[in-house]
């Protein structure tokens, strides 16, 4: 019998493989059969699901009936499942993007949630909002500039 911990969002789920080849999740047994590379048929006696699975950097992407989740292995003790866009409040680009509009200037007082920048990536506009109320200390980008993810673009005092 072998066990594995899956981290789904903020939740840890234990999965267990029994000697009959069933996978137990949340106290329920499932039979898993490989259909084609990456596609599995999962059956629990009454219902069947076709599930796609792919591995990427320690995480497993799964898709079933149009839903998708990214599952990390090893449970809570492993590295956190930080979102690609960083913490929600950061005034940084979530991906390489071009600065389209700068809506604030140093010294300006802004409210929480105010749009401070509009970026563009992949033909889409991305508004960047203030994580809290405050006074703008510095604007670290220029209109038309290509900015990289994670770099702080606007700072508050």
């Amino acid at each position: 019998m072998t066990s594995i911990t899956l981290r789904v969002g903020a939740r840890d789920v234990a999965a267990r493989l029994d000697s009959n080849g069933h996978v137990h999740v949340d106290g329920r047994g499932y039979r898993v059969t490989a259909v084609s590379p990456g596609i599995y048929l999962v059956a629990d006696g009454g219902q069947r699901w076709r599930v796609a699975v792919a591995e990427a950097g320690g995480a497993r992407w799964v898709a079933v009936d149009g839903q998708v989740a990214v599952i990390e292995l090893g449970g809570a003790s492993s590295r956190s499942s930080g979102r690609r866009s960083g913490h929600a409040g950061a005034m940084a680009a979530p991906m390489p993007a071009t600065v389209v509009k700068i809506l604030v200037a140093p010294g300006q007082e802004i409210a929480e949630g105010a749009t401070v920048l509009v970026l563009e990536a992949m033909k889409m506009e991305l508004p960047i909002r203030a994580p809290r109320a405050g006074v703008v200390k510095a604007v670290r980008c220029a209109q038309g500039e290509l900015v990289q993810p994670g770099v702080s673009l606007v700072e508050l005092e």
Partner: protein
Amino acid sequence: MIKRLLIANRGEIAVRVIRACRELGIDTVAVYSDADAHAPHVLAADRAVRLGPAPPRESYLNGPALLDAARSSGADAIHPGYGFLSERTHFARACEEAGIIFVGPPSTAIDRMGSKVGARQLMEGAGVPVVPGEAPEDQSEWALAAAAARVGFPVLVKPSAGGGGIGMKVVRERDEVAEAVAQARREAQAAFGDGTLYVERLVERPRHVEVQVFADAHGNAVHLFERECSVQRRHQKMIEESPSEALSPALRARMGEAAVAAARAAGYQNAGTVEFLLEGAGDTARFYFLEMNTRLQVEHPVTEMVVGVDLVHAQLRVASGEPLPWSQASLAQRGHAIECRVYAEDPGQGFLPQAGPLLLYREPRGPGIRVDSGVVEGGEITVHYDPMIAKLIVWGETREATRRRAVEALRECYILGVRTNIPFLLTLLEHPRFIEGAIDTGFLDREGDAVRALMPADIPPAALAAAAAHAAPRATATTTRRESAGGIDPFHSLGGWRG
């Protein structure tokens, strides 16, 4: 007939055009940026020419490089696809001047439709309805109120200069005119240094209904009925369908005639689309010219499936000087088609576009299902181009059969490695408003968050079981296929398991 065609585009539309060429015996030349050196459209063509680095400006928007590529590869025609240079007058003109067939309208027609003001005047002259409006010489409050009354409430009071919604005021009753005019003038003056105002009828909860048109060099012009594209988020179309639930046969006929009149007025040739705003539904509805897209549309397969035509074949024939392959009388709609645009964007994060590898990419298949795509498993969605991964187009005998088929097909569309809008598309397709066919262009902007809240939150535990059973690729890549063939359980090779 065109002998060798350069496709000045990438992705699914380039693949689509190359396939049509193979069927017609036309040689193909793909072009690519460094980011696309091994993209499916490059591999599908008979030859391929590098344009430059990834940014569109230096590659797919680089007109001179494209013309050079055409010349050096001996192409006698260029298909611009959609986006990129497809609606740039100067590019079409440069092709004309270089003696290369531009598979699209004459540059003069692109020019005429490229200017909003010019196009509006052209349409008025051709008897095509435009949104009623007046720009009175007399800018007094009284004159503007009178104009508003003539246009009919509710109206928009708008500054003549500028744009972006600045100074725009909704006026629902005559009593509100005075205040709105004063306010709008102040804001317009402040923003643009010009307080001139005009009045336009406010079209509330409009639908976006567009008509496919096609004209040849011999004076023939037809329409191929409508597509409804009201399901859009911030002007980005998400689901398109034909027929539109809002059109009665009489209205459909009137809109088709108006679209043909628009094409004729523009001196149009080849495939084009006349977009209308539709107010109301059925015989009493009113429609207004919005703009003309002087190119093939992303959503052209919807028309292909419902009308039973191949628009790209027709484009290539007409560009070669052949007459239209259809008469208006030979064209009819049959059944229903729905297109879902599958985007790399995360509905859970405000539809943030996503870039990443396509770790697993499997398209649905089956009767009535068509997928137009230009990606493969193992490929990548990069930040350089738009985030559309694929178009799923389904056909069925009735709208409801089509809708259900689209749902089943989306559930079988497996994309891992980047988040997509599939969960949102599924929620939308199952939404009562979509089932009713009662969605206007503002629906998603008004109620998108509520729709998003309906997306299922938790993945079923069965998916976790598969994730747990899935072994690390290193351990099983060579055996998975055999397992599936022999029907052996995958458990003997659970590389990811620890005791």
